């Protein structure tokens, strides 16, 4: 797989994308404001890292939605990217963020892993995908949910996905997450996010 990643120019995109740890996984780094269709020639997998400006994503929406419309191509969209405003078919409900859950006595994170035999889990442990989250996705029927949470206790949503793989709604593949590891790894703030990328990027590379 030939992987390209969009670079939003933030300090954390610089650290995660250009830093020594992961730079070798990206065959092409594209500065997001300058993205053109020619930049995607020969690219199989395009990563939209978490917390890219939705202003840019909306500006590039036709190009981004066209990418997984070709068989053999994968569009990866990480979290906090306001996907309903530009990604066709994406549905998301926000939730208040509990970033201190692990300090609560006897805390058990609500995360569920409905497809434990999925190849991703040969590269990461389920625990590597567990950190606070900001909302849930509602994938289209036929998608494979890899990380899920049950219904919100206060009735905001009926539960949903934090990470899913969609091979059915278009010729290419879509991987969508609420997870935001580029931000947290690049901020040097949460070790689970580093472990996640340590496995997630090799999985993308190997297909």
């Amino acid at each position, binding site marked *: 797989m030939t992987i390209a990643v969009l670079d939003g120019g*933030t300090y954390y995109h610089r650290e995660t994308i250009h830093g020594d740890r992961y730079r070798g996984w990206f065959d092409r780094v594209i500065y997001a*404001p300058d993205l053109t269709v020619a930049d995607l020639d020969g690219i199989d997998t395009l990563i939209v890292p978490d917390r890219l400006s939705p*202003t840019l994503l909306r500006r590039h929406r036709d190009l981004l939605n066209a990418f997984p419309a070709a068989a053999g191509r994968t569009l990866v969209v990480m979290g906090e990217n306001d996907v309903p405003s530009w990604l066709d078919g994406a549905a998301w409900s926000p939730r208040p963020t509990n970033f201190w859950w692990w300090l609560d006595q006897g805390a058990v994170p609500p995360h569920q892993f409905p497809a434990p035999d999925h190849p991703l889990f040969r590269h990461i442990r389920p625990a590597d995908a567990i950190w606070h989250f900001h909302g849930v996705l509602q994938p289209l029927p036929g998608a494979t949910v890899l990380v899920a949470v049950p219904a919100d206790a206060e009735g905001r949503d009926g539960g949903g996905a934090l990470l899913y793989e969609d091979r059915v709604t278009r010729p290419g593949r879509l991987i969508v997450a609420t997870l935001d590891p580029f931000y947290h790894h690049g901020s040097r703030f949460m070790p689970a996010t580093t472990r996640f990328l340590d496995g997630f990027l090799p999985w993308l590379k190997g297909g």
Partner: protein
Amino acid sequence: MILVLTTGFEEGAAARLVQLPGMAGRVTGLDQYDLEGAGLDHARALVVGMHCDQRRLSERAGMIAEFLARGGRVVASGHHAYPFLPGVGDFQPMPQPTLADLTVHRLSDHPVWAGVEGKDLTFRRGVAGFYGRGWHEPPGDAQVINGIGPDRRPLDFVYRVGAGAVLFHGGNDLTGYGAACDTSGRILPQLLDWISAP
């Protein structure tokens, strides 16, 4: 007028700041990619948050320096990764920090942090590290207000550029403390007062 760069999220921290009571007419949001076209001629201050595209800002470093030279104020949060601010060094991380490394210490008085206790900066909901996880080398004439870790490395500092000034915070957005229930909740109103002071 205080110009706050927004990053495309209607519900983002920058956008929420603009929507706070009393901010109408005082604070204006501007998408970061519209800065070049809009210019800074009518702004008193520019607020740059942690989620801004510093690469693009660094391409506008001359515009920011001119704004400062003629009396503008810049308030910036985050890790300085591209050179958009005059005189600020690159972010210096603390590898595998301990709680002592993440502890915030007051080194000098400043009206933005008046009455704010160090423990309320070190911890948020019991979690350390939000406020800062490293440090930056400031310009030689900077006033360092808060330091981090046992060596009290520069975390918050203010310095003059011409007739203007930069207030730099090397961690998560200062403007994100608007709803805090402890003494860190004093930062945002005091910051807006400092920006507006003659």
